[in-house]
Structures are given as structure tokens and as C-alpha cells.
């Protein structure tokens, strides 16, 4: 892996989330999960970021903000959508104010469904995104079929743990 995937900086945008996903995502920064060991930083600013993490379904006002934030990120960049809300609108899908899912506005590279996903799954999703970032760096244009969708049942937490551990090793290598 090259330097680009060893230093993924994240900007987090909360669309119309119930904040469940956000709380779980912020939990990734805690000593328990410590994403900084992969060089992951939460920069809060699209101009410095490589990865855009989106949570929640997109309402009408979000559309323009999401586009702007995405446009202000320098290439190569990837989008990770956390939670079912981002992939389908989730439980808010039929609300009057909902525009739809994230992929209607910006191209999404990794979906991490669940309501909310566990921190392990989120980290796993970001590690997957790193691979895509690497390929984008190399100039590859990714068809959407090639992009991973992580499905994770709550019982499958055990599945995610080795993946995270593996990623941890890679990060430290």
C-alpha cells in the first residue's frame, strides 16, 4: 500500500441522520477502536479530506450541501455511506422532506448498511474504501458494480473483528 491509503483523512457529513450512526462513528475515535492507528484523522474540512463519510438520508436542503462538500474535496476521493438511511432513505424514506439516498446526489463508493452499523463495520468500510482510493489514485475508473457493499448482521460482529484486526496490522506495517 502506498502513502495515500495510509493517511486517510475523513470529513463527516451528517445529512438527515437520527444521530445513531454519528454516535457510533465518533465512537471509532475513542481508545476502544482508535482509528488513528490507521492514520485516519477526522479533519472536518472537505479541502483536507480524502474520504467523505455520509450518514443519514438526504433531505432537500442536503442536496446542495452534499454536492458542495464533495466538490470541494481534492481528487482522489471516495465516499463511504454509513447506515441504511444513506442507501435507501431507511426508515425516513417516505418522509415529506426526503429527497432520497446519497447516490442520487454524489457517487458512493462503499455502503455500510445496518441501523446503525457497529464501529467495527464502519472501520471495515473505511478500510475497503482505502483500496478504492488506491485504485482511483492509479487512475482507474470504477464502475459501481465493482464497489463493495458490506452487509453485516448484528450477529456477524465476529466477522468484522478479524477484518479490523487485519486492517490494524496493515496499518502498522
Amino acid at each position, binding site marked *: 500500500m502506498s*502513502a495515500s491509503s495510509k*493517511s486517510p483523512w475523513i470529513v463527516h457529513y451528517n445529512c438527515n441522520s437520527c444521530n445513531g450512526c454519528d454516535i457510533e462513528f465518533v465512537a471509532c475515535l475513542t481508545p476502544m477502536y482508535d482509528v*488513528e*492507528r490507521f*492514520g485516519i484523522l477526522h479533519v472536518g*474540512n472537505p479541502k483536507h479530506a480524502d474520504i467523505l463519510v455520509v450518514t443519514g438520508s438526504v433531505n432537500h436542503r442536503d442536496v446542495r450541501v452534499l454536492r458542495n462538500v464533495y466538490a470541494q474535496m481534492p481528487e482522489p476521493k471516495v465516499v463511504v455511506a454509513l447506515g441504511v438511511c444513506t442507501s435507501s432513505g431507511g426508515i425516513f424514506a417516505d418522509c415529506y422532506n426526503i429527497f432520497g439516498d446519497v447516490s442520487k446526489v454524489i457517487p458512493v463508493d462503499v455502503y455500510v448498511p445496518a441501523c446503525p452499523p457497529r464501529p467495527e463495520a464502519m472501520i471495515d468500510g473505511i478500510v475497503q474504501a482505502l483500496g478504492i482510493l488506491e485504485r482511483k489514485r492509479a487512475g482507474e475508473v470504477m464502475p459501481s458494480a465493482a464497489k463493495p457493499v458490506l452487509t453485516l448482521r448484528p450477529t456477524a460482529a465476529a466477522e468484522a473483528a478479524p477484518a479490523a484486526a487485519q486492517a490494524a496490522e496493515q496499518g502498522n506495517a
Partner: protein
Amino acid sequence: MTLTPQMLTVILAVVLGPILGALVSGLDRKITARVQGRWGPPIIQPFYDVLKLLRKEALGVNRIQIIYVWLHLAFMILTVVLLAMGQDMLMALFAYTFSSVALILGAMSVRSPYSRIGSHRKIMQMFAYEPVLILLIVGVYLITGSFQASSVAQQPLLVKLPLVFLTFLMAAAIKLEKSPFDIATSHHAHQELVKGITIEYAGPYLALIEITHFYEIFIVFAVVASFWATSPAIGLGLAAAGFLALIVVDNVFARLTPMWMLRYMWTVPLTLALSNIIWLYCA
């Protein structure tokens, strides 16, 4: 052309300076993480960051800011060169000041409220630490009778400048954007200013700022070490102790307001440094 020892020092400082600075910065992140009970990033993480940034798209808001980021780097290297040549310290300080000013001006050339507030805070930071730095040079002059940076090697300065050393560490906390003074920009998570002064720099331009910062770290710890320049071992120990102290302070304190910083820096450290200087005058 033959290499004189002086030229060799200059070249070594310019080449190795940022590398050492980056390592120190990586070590800082690692130790901070350990203090917080985390594993932390690898020590060479800053290199990854810079390499990544260099290969990203060069985005900007206008063109003026780009010139300033280069001036920022150029004058920081100039400071290193002047110090390594053993030249006038006050002049080196002015070059260093201009380097910071260039960053401020670049950030101010952008129509961005975050950037503007960040740069104003940076000005306040400079305003807070400048007197302390000049007093440091005054102290060295009073001891050695010379402004040349080369003169610090004559004797251990710490013996005669203990309070100035203390205040320099406080100034260093500002320069390295450590809590409680990390008000203009910060390496930690989300700030009220969303990265403040560097917010409108992306990709390679941000990498340049990072590299400049590595030089800055190098300069700061080189100065700390030069308080005991007669013995490299003690000097390095001093630098290490200062480094650890800064990390502890960083982790113990919350970020405070700019006005608090100004009031603090213009009272406690300034008084300390001044009393040290005054007893040197009297001695």
C-alpha cells in the same frame, strides 16, 4: 569547490531538519495516543501524510495564496540556513517572523471567515510570543556579547537563563500549536475553526505547510537543545525533557481563548523573562 564544515552544517540542517521534525511530530502523536490509552499511528505517519498530500489535486480559492505558501516555506528554510551558518540571531528571528506572516497573509487573501479568524488568531499568537523570543536573544547577547548564533556554543546558557528557558518552552507551546494555545489551527479532531488558518489550502499546498511546520519543530527543539550546547548529550536530554513537558501540558490543558493567551503571555512569562534579563544586567 570544497565543502567547508559550515556549508556542511547548512546542507545537513536543510536536508535533515524536516525529517527530524517529522519524526518528532510522529513521536508526539504516538506518545499522545499512549497517554490517552490508544495505540496511536506509526511514528512515520507524518511522512505518509505529506506524501499523500503531495499527490493530491492542487485545489485553491485564488492564486495569491499560492505565492504566500511558497514564501512561508522559503523564509522558514532561510531561518534554518541563517542559524546553521551561525549568523545573526535577531535577523533569523525576523526571517522566521516573516515566514509566519506569509502564512497569515496567504490565509487572509481568501474570502473565508474561518481562514480570516484563524489568521487573526495567528497574529495574536505571534504578538504573544515575539517579545519572549527577542528577550531570549537579549539574554544570549548579555551572556556572550554577541548576536551570532554560533556564540551559543561557548557555555551552557541554561545556568544563566533558567527563567528564559522556561518562557521559551511556553512560547514553543504556541509555535507548535499545543493546548492551551492551539487556537489558530490544530492537529486534533474537530475545531471551532475547522482547521482555521490552513483551511483553504488543499493537497500539495497543505503539504508545503506541513513541511514548513516540520522545519519549525526542528528549529524549536534545536533552540531548546542549544541551551546546553557544550555537551550534545545534555542538550538532547534537554530537548527530550522539553518535548515531554509539552506533550503533558498539551494533554492536561483545554484550549483557551486568544485573549486569555495574550493576557497570560504578556504577564507571567514576560515577567519571568524580564526578571531573568534584569538580573543579568545587574550581574
